[in-house]
């Protein structure tokens, strides 16, 4: 730490320096020859892990591409249900968090422990903000019956069949109060000379409270973009989610009025009638029984399929955010324990790289799902 300035120009330099000091530094595993080898192993490891993650998501992007290429009109119509403004806001939130994490890595290289903690707590707040806003998006869609695949039950103009958004208010209050409380306890612990417990609790507190904040912002944006929907979401449900501007609302209205071939073939009740359109055949015709002749209809791809992909992709992404939150909290705790310095900062960099990937995936998800024109 004392030699931070001397090492600041390149990580390479201080690793060699560390090596020179002798065999085992506090965080050097016994099977590595030196800190540099350990750092390089870790870095290659995380890059390979990220490669693995990219392929994990690649499967989903392939599914998306196949469905969109075969049924562009379904995707075009379905995306009006997504609130572009919320998506854009979340994109900015994640970009900000990525910046903070990169800054945090730099702080670690400069042995600036406080910097690591501040940037990572900010990142945690962004992560939760993102989740809070996503909660708002999900619940409003569920209220309209916009579920996935077999559960899809959206009917334009119908009254909301569910009231998931009723849970938003209490969730917001609970997270704000609990988060604030945790943050205050953390502050107290920190003052009492327990920095690790203090910062960890504080970070968790900020994380929890930011969920509430996300809900507030999400609902606010929702209300701002569709004033009618706020008071009576049943009135014209479609416009609530389509309209990030009046222009978009008009477009959507047009899309509603002139059904595309897809809509024409199965008007309005996109999937609610999934059970009736193919009355389940008796499961076991005996081997000698020739089956009914009128052949099966071709595959009927509807908005339900778009939302299957939407929920699955954003859901898996959210799981990665949650994993990231755990990892970031761990970094805060270790930073508070003063583990990181210019010689040993691998974990900060690894978690940072992971977080960039989570951000990157969203950077692709946002235009692919929200900005279909």
């Amino acid at each position, binding site marked *: 730490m004392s030699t931070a300035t001397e090492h600041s120009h390149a990580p390479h330099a201080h690793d060699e320096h560390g090596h020179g000091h002798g065999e085992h530094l506090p965080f050097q595993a016994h099977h590595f020859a030196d800190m540099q080898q350990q750092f390089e192993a870790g870095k290659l490891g995380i890059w390979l892990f990220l490669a693995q993650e990219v392929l994990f998501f690649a499967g989903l992007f*392939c599914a998306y591409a196949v469905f969109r290429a075969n049924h562009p009109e379904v995707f075009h119509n379905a995306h009006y249900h997504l609130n572009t403004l919320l998506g854009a806001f979340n994109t900015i939130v994640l970009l900000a968090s990525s910046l903070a994490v990169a800054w945090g890595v730099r702080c670690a290289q400069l042995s600036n422990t406080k910097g690591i903690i501040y940037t990572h707590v900010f990142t945690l707040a962004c992560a939760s903000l993102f989740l809070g806003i996503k909660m708002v998006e999900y619940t409003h869609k569920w209220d309209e019956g916009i579920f*996935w695949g*077999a559960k899809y039950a959206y009917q334009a103009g119908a009254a909301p069949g569910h009231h998931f958004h009723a849970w938003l208010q209490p969730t917001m209050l609970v997270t704000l109060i609990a988060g604030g409380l945790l943050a205050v306890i953390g502050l107290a612990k920190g003052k009492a000379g327990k920095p690790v417990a203090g910062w960890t609790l504080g970070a968790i507190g900020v994380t929890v409270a930011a969920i509430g904040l996300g809900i507030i912002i999400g609902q606010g944006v929702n209300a701002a973009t569709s004033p009618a929907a706020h008071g009576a979401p049943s009135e014209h449900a479609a416009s609530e989610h389509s309209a990030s501007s009046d222009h978009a609302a008009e477009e959507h209205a047009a899309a509603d009025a002139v059904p595309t071939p897809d809509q024409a073939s199965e008007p309005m009740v996109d999937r609610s009638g999934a059970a009736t359109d193919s009355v389940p055949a008796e499961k076991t015709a005996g081997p000698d029984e020739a089956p009914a002749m009128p052949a099966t209809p071709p595959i009927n791809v509807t908005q339900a*399929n778009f939302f299957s*992909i939407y929920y699955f992709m954003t859901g898996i992404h959210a799981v990665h955010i949650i994993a990231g939150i755990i990892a970031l909290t761990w970094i805060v705790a270790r930073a508070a324990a003063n583990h990181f310095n210019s010689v040993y900062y691998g974990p900060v960099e690894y978690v940072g790289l992971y977080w960039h990937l989570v951000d990157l995936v969203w950077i692709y998800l946002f235009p692919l799902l929200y900005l279909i024109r």
Partner: protein
Amino acid sequence: MVTQAKEHLDFHSLGLTEDRRVIIPEGKSYLSGGGLWSWVFTLDHKRIGVMYLASILTFFLVGGIFALLVRAELYTPDIDLISKLFGLDAEKAKDKYNEFFTLHGAIMVFLFIIPSIPAALGNIILPMQLGAKDVAFPRMNLASYHLYVWGALFFIGALLMTGLDTGWTFYAPYSTTTVGPVAMATLGAFILGFSSIFTGLNFVVTVNTMRPKGMTWFRMPLFLWGVYATAIIQILATPVLAITLLLLTFERVFGLGIFDPKLGGDPVLYQHFFWFYSHPAVYIMILPGMAIISDVIPTFSRKPIFGYTFIAYSSIAIALLGFLVWGHHMFTSGQSPLASVVFSAITFSVSIPSAIKVFNWTATMYKGSIHLNTPMCYALSFIFLFTIGGLTGLFLGALNVDVHLHDTYFVVAHFHYVMMGGTLIAFLAGLHYWWPKIFGKMYNETWARVACVIIFIGFNWTFLPQFVLGTHGMPRRYATYEPQFQAGHRLSTQGAFFLGSGLFLAGGVLLHSLLKGKKAPPNPWGAATLEWKCCSPPTTQNFETTPWVGFPYDYSDFVYDPNEEGYVEVLPDLARSAKH
């Protein structure tokens, strides 16, 4: 490059002095000490490897029993044996049969073959061949094993609940509509996928960053090349399987509508996803097998491997090309004819690196001194069987022939020649090769070789008739069949039991060695790779003294010592070389 004949010109008859002997210090075996907990939460790569070994062999037994049940049922055209054995009517018995072949396939693929060589043997041998103390991430290595156990528990759960009848391929929409515990099995495979990814990731990082000084990429043992190529596939292909199985699980549980045509999904998309993993997975299975053979053949021929660089590059070529050929499983699936043509063309290009390897192994034996120890017997058997397995792949790559042969017993025979005749035999070669190192005991060579011969004969007896069944149109996964096929099925079933007895004998010989075997010398075969430069079994740290890194296939410094019943490394005679 001239090497000395060991048995007949040994350490003493060559007049070597004791001061030229490289001493390998004895140490406390990594196997000894510690209770159960010290095993379950060990970070020692060798202990993790041994636990893997025990686990996969257990599942090999389970999968093998299912195979024998399937074969026994097929002795007659009707569904009679399972009916009688379990007291079921014909319909239920057919269901049972379907479960048996599903469990045979799923257990063998996910719980045995894929982890067999990389996770079990690789875990033990890879760091030692690198002269390292451990893999790069020991905790991740342990996590990989624990994930394996969890995945296996899911599979056992599915097995106990009975009714898993999808085939190991889990094709939608059958898998989304059938009644069995499919979600449990796919979740199990999902977890096993991460176990496999962790192992692969560890190996790539270990090989990349922990090679000792003097071991450049092209001075690495070929086992490392093979496992390295495998690890790349594990990292890049397995996540696609993971996401596919996750989608399938959600499809089943929540009605997602990606694969099920009733919900607008696309069942052929599932097949693309599945084979994008599962074809490279074939190379996850066979590449490490080839890698073992590449180490065994030169050791027992006392000759450097022929064409080292070609073999090394061919491993990487197979790994990369393996990603581009998945569509050859789908020539009749309804994918576009153009796609089929492209996949067929690329498929043939994969055959070339495999051919190169076979030629090189054979050429390695030229002018050597071939020692027919058990690992070498298995290696020769591997070349024979893998050649058949590889060449029969040419039939299936040819588009119009594949249309006829797809999903018949020809395919069954082909992939058993590759997976069992290839991977399993190579695994047995490796197991017998490294057994003295892993457990520090010598097994009975005579009986081990008898077992090898029985396995070889039994294997061909079982699977050669299946080629003929296939070309005559016997479809796979049939519980009952036309009487015209009975002659072939009878032969195959008889062979299967003969083969099974050989495997039991091999297992018995190895188990016997654990109890009664002679103590193994550090280097019983005279191999030049680093894992033989520590005591047998190694200590927890592997190497008490840093070993000298030479070319892994230069045997000129290894001389037989009858007192040790093994080989010793000889230091260069400084005085004499100074004179020259």
